[in-house]
């Protein structure tokens, strides 16, 4: 489902990354490991279509994202990719359920309140549906972020450092949750992290090393 080929990225300031080829199919999980500065967030943003490059290709469901123009890429991302960031951001003026509905609206899909509600139920936060985001705990916020990521039935779910701030117990819970939701959505799950604990949980792994960050 997700396949990258000869993916490279060059920053204007000169930093250059040469990424290994990646393959991850639906209902599979991939762990991308590496320490800071090694290009993890660059890779994540490329995979999520938040960054584009002329070097190499990223195919999702057969479509090479790098060939899409800006507006189409935005739309494609909304339809097919769900992203969970390390720091969870929401639209603070909207309620929990409105945040989910917004993600449906911006991806050009139909707004389905019933579906959003059932999603919240699945994640055990349906009682917070009409509340403001500020009333949630960090854990609840993360679950809303996950709900938002899967709201559009994406083909790919990307998670950026989802467990770095959590203790061991919660770390396991969150990963289990992610896997479960990805499975239910029928999506590929790619987790980018420096958290070594995950090495024991997710078998399919790639490690980015400094050798790849070569100035050319």
């Amino acid at each position, binding site marked *: 489902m997700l396949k990258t080929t000869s993916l490279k990225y060059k920053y204007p300031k000169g930093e250059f990354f040469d990424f290994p080829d990646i393959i991850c199919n639906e209902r599979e999980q991939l762990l991308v490991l590496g320490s800071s500065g090694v290009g993890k967030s660059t890779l994540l*943003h490329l995979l999520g279509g938040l960054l584009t490059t002329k070097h190499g290709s990223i195919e999702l469901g057969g479509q090479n994202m790098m060939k899409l123009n800006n507006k189409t890429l935005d739309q494609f991302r909304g339809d097919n990719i769900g992203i969970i960031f390390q720091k969870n951001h929401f639209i603070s003026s909207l309620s929990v359920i409105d945040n989910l509905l917004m993600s449906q609206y911006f991806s050009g899909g139909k707004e389905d309140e019933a579906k959003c509600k059932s999603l919240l139920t699945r994640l055990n936060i349906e009682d917070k549906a009409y509340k403001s985001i500020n009333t949630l705990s960090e854990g609840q916020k993360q679950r809303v972020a996950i709900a938002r990521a899967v709201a559009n039935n994406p083909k790919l779910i990307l998670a950026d450092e989802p467990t770095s701030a959590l203790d061991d117990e919660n770390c396991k819970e969150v990963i289990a949750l992610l896997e479960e939701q990805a499975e239910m959505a029928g999506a590929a799950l790619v987790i980018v992290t420096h958290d070594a604990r995950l090495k024991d949980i997710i078998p399919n792994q790639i490690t980015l090393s400094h050798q790849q960050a070569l100035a050319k």
Partner: protein
Amino acid sequence: MKLLKLAWKNIIHNPLNLLLSIILFGLGIGLINFLILFNTQLKNKFDSNLAGIDLVIGAKGSPLQMILSSMYHVDAPTGNVKVSEVKAFLNPRHPLIKAAVPLSLGDNYKSYRIVGTTDSLMSFYNATLQQGKFYNRDLEVVIGRAVADDTGLKLGDKFKSSHGFNDDEDLAHDHAAFVVTGILNGIGSVIDQLILTNPSTVWNVHDHSDESPMIMDEEEKEDHSDHDHDGDGKSDHTAEEHNHSHDDHDHDGDGKPDHTPEEHDHSHDDHDHDGDGHPDHAPEDHAGHDHAAHNHGPLARTNAELLNYPDKEITTLLIKFRNRTNFQALSMPRSINENTDMQAASPAIEINRLYSMIGSGRQMLQWLAALIGIISAISIFIVLLKSMRERKYELALIRVMGGSRSSLYSLITIEGMIMTAIGFFVGFILSHIGMEILAGLLKSSYKYSFTGWYFMKKEWILLGISLVIGVIASLIPAISAARMDIHETLNER
């Protein structure tokens, strides 16, 4: 439209910012609209009360004051002129003058001015009677719509006037009361706030101001054998003149027959008093007419009758020319000013002068209003810019969810337009309330009816301008949001 809902929620999520913006913007728009409401009504009143009058002749003094007192009925007149001085202009066959209307000012009822004039004044202003009939005898009056509404006077009601132009108990005239015979339709010009009566009423009120009605009745009973018909103490004609037969049909004693024998031998059953073949009134009107208004003083209702009293005074004469471009008509004012003790002034010229004098004041207010508008637009710009910077991650999130750059541009722009639209409505309400308050003050001072319930199509244009200002104020923040690099923004920790 979901974007609209999001924009709205974003705005009310930060109520203090919103309040600041709409108060400032509302004040600016409110002031601008208030000035427009006031100026438009003011100009309408100036223009509609010009009424096609070409010249005003009156006592020497400030020409503007004469125009203001005689046509706009504010301020005091410059003095009076004798009928004999304006004799020539009262002639209906004057080669240059189409119509001349005399005005006598001097009294008021509850600050509404009583004006002695002929029925031509009504045609100058295109006024029509709503109820009742035009005045005929002295002390009968016709009142304008605003007078009726404000004082509650109805047909048949009686009242007493007071001297001058302000309602003052100490100056109340103690004489037989005025009676309302007619009420005019409201036409939106100065005549709405006037009380009209005969020119001679004004004379009689001032001549008899010390006498009580009792004395009047005794005069009625007095024996007329002294041939003193107009009650001034002098015989009007000799005894022999009285005993002439009327076979020679010489009624005014000047030696010439006034009419043929046939014309004389009509009965009065047809109630045709002036001999022109038309009944002057219905038979019923003869019976039981009220003698309370009976007077022995001079009676003048028309220009012709005025000429009978050359020593009496009027305040001004309003004139319409037959041909405005006639050279002689144009030079008439100058010859009056230079060769007589009177002055003549052109209303249009004086009012334009007045307008240009207050013009600089008006302009300053307009600049002030525009300045406030600009400052408030800047405040909206700053609010939007600040909020955009604080919401960077949220905006990036919208892009992540699939929103395009143009959707971010639209979002910020809609937020700006909502703020200016709300500001407009706040200003709209403030301006009409302000106008209504000013209208109350103007009514009590000048009797003119302004109103806050005056709506113009122009106000929609002002709404349009407000929305455009919203777009302009949000331009920079919106473009900045659209051009945001998601990658960089999300990387900032």
